[in-house]
C-alpha cells in the first residue's frame, strides 16, 4: 500500500512534465525563429553556406516541439 502511495506521489511530481514543458517552449521559440530566419539566415550560416541550406534552427525546433509535446501531454498534471 505504501509503495502505491509513493508511486502516486512521484507521478504528481511529474519530473518528466517539467522536462516536456521546457522542451516544448524551447521548440516553439526555435520554430518561430527558424521560420523568421528562413530567408534571412544568421551570420554564422552565411559564412558556412552548407549550413544555411540545412535550416538547423527550424528542424531542431521541430524535434524539440515533438519531444516536448509528447512528454507534456503524456505526463500532464492530474492525468
Amino acid at each position, binding site marked *: 500500500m505504501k509503495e502505491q502511495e509513493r508511486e502516486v506521489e512521484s507521478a504528481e511530481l511529474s*519530473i518528466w512534465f517539467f522536462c516536456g514543458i521546457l522542451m516544448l517552449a524551447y521548440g516553439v521559440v526555435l520554430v518561430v525563429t527558424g521560420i523568421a530566419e528562413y530567408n534571412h539566415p544568421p551570420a554564422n550560416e552565411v559564412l558556412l553556406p552548407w549550413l544555411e541550406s540545412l535550416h538547423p534552427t527550424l528542424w531542431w525546433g521541430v524535434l524539440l516541439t515533438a519531444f516536448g509535446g509528447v512528454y507534456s501531454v503524456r505526463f500532464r498534471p492530474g492525468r
Partner: protein
Amino acid sequence: MTGSEAQTTFTFGTDSMQAFAAFFLVGHQLTKLSSVDILILLLYFALVVFIGFYAKGKANTSEDFFLAGREMTAWIAGLSFVSANLGSLELMGWAGSAYQYGILAAHWYWIGAIPAMLFLGIVMMPFYYISKTHSVPGYLQLRFGEGARAVSAISFAFMTILMSGVNMYAMAVVMQTVLGWNITFSIWVGAGTVALYVMLGGLRSAIINEVLQFVLIWAGAAIVPILGLIEAGGWTKLKAQIAVNVGSSDYTHMWSTLGGFKDNPMGVHWTGIVFGLGFVISFGYWTTDFLVVQRVLSANNLRAAKMAPVIGSVFKMAVPFIVILPGLLALAVLKNPDGTLMHLVPASVAKVTGQHSYDDVLPLMLIRYCGPGLLGLGITALVAGFMSGMAGNVSAFSTVWTYDIYGAFLNKKASDKHYVAMGRWSTVIGMLVSIGTAYLVMNAASIMDYVQALFSFFIAPLFGTVVLGMLWKRATHWGGFTGLLAGTVASVGMFIWVHTNANALRYIAMSPDAKPMAENLYRALWSWLICMVVTVLVSLVTKPVPDEQLAGLVMGVTPIPDDGAKTIWQKPIFWAIVVIVIFFVLNLIFW
C-alpha cells in the same frame, strides 16, 4: 571530404573574413546573445525557481529534505546520478582535453566510469541501501565507528563547499569570456538561484533540476556533433582530416597507442589507465563520493537503487558524443578568419598571446554552428550545468553537515523539524562560503588547482576503506580508521613531493617519460594500495568486530533481501551485463 577540400571550404573572401572576425570578436567576448537567446535563458530561470517553490510543499521532514523522501524511480535516480557529475566545468574541460589529447579523453567516460557504476549498482548498493544510511560518512560510522565518520564527514564538507566555489567562479569566467558578463553578476545570480531552490525543496528540488539539466544539455549540445559530422563528411573522413591537420593518427585511437608513455599525446601508459583510472580513481569517485551516491539513496526500493547506476551508466557512455566528439571535430574544422587552421593553446599561454584556450573549444564550436535561438539553448545548457553542479555540492554539503557533523557531534537530540531548518540554513551559509571561495579563487587562480587536487587526496583511500568494510568482515574499527588516515597522508605526501621536486614523478609513475596526467593516476593507485595494506595489517592485529554487529553492513554476514525482480528484463544484473558488453564493443571499435 579530403584535406584539401576541407581547406578550400574555409577560404573566405575579404568581406566574409571581416564579417567572421566581427562575429567572433565582439569586444573581448566571443559572442553576444540576441533577444531570443535571452528569452530562452529567462524561461530556464523561471522554471527552476518555480520548481523550488513546487518542491517546498513536499520537503517537510528530514527524510524528504535530505533524501527526497526515498521515493525516486530508478530512471529519475539514475539520470540524476549521472547528471550530478555532468557539470559544465567537466563538459568544457573534457572537450578541451579531447582537442589536446584526442580520443584518449574518452577513457574518463568509459573505463573511468562504466565498470565502477555497474559495481556500485550490483555489489555495493545493496549494503548502502539496506543499512538505511543517509550518507557515506553515515555508513562509515555504522561500519568503523565515529572516528572514521568524523574524518570523512569533515573532509567531505570542507571539500564540497570549496568545489562549489570553484564551480561558481568557473561559471562566471565562462560567462565573461563567452558573453562579456560581469563576474560578480554571474556569481550572485547563479548562487542566489541555486540557494533559493535547494533551500526550498532540498534534494527533491536538486534532483528535478538535475534531470531537467540532463535533458537540456542534450538538447543544447547534441546539435554541435551532428552538424560537425555533416561538415567533416562522417567519422572516417574526420579521422583522415585530423591525421592531416595534426600530422599523426594517434588522436583517434583509444588503446593502440598506450603501450608506452612516449607513444601517445597524453603521456600515459595502459597500466595507469586500467589500474589507476579504471580501477582506483573511478571506483573511488563513483562508489564513495556522497555527491553522486546520495542520488541513488533516494531510490524508492532496492531494485530501483540497483538499477539506477546501471541506467546512469548507459547515459554516461553516450556523453562522449557531445563532449569528446566536438573536441575532435575542432581539430579538423576549426579555422581562423583567414581560413588557416585555428590552434588552441593552454590557458596560461592564451592569457599572454590572446589566442583561444583549449577550454574554449565547446563555446567556439557552439558559436560556429548555432545562430540565435540555438546559441541561447547551448548557453542555457552550460548555465544549467554549472548551476546543477553547485546544487549537487551544496545539497550534499547540507546533508553531511546536518546529519554527520551537527547532528552527530554538536546537537544529537534535536527534533526532526529542527534538522530540516538546519538543512535550509546550512544551504544558505554553505552557498555564502562558496561565494567567498569564488572571490578567493578570483584573486589567486592557483587555489583552483589546489582545491581540485585536495578532492583527489580523499577519494582513493576512501574507496579502499569502504570496499574492505563492505567485502571483508575481519576489517576492524582501528584498521579502517588508520588505513584511511595513512592513505590520505600518503596521497598528500606524494602531491607535495612532485610539486616540490619535478623529478619525483618518474618514481611515482615508474617511468622517466611520464607526463603530469600520469601523476594523478599513479598517486591514486599508490594511496589506495597503502590504505588497503595498512587496513589489513592493523585489522589482523586488532580485535575482530562480532558478526552480529556487522549484520546489514558486510557481505557474508548479511542476507541480501530479494529485490523483487521476477523476469530477466527486471533483473539489474542482466542489464549490467548488456552494458558491459556494449562497453567492450565500443572500446574495440575505437581501439
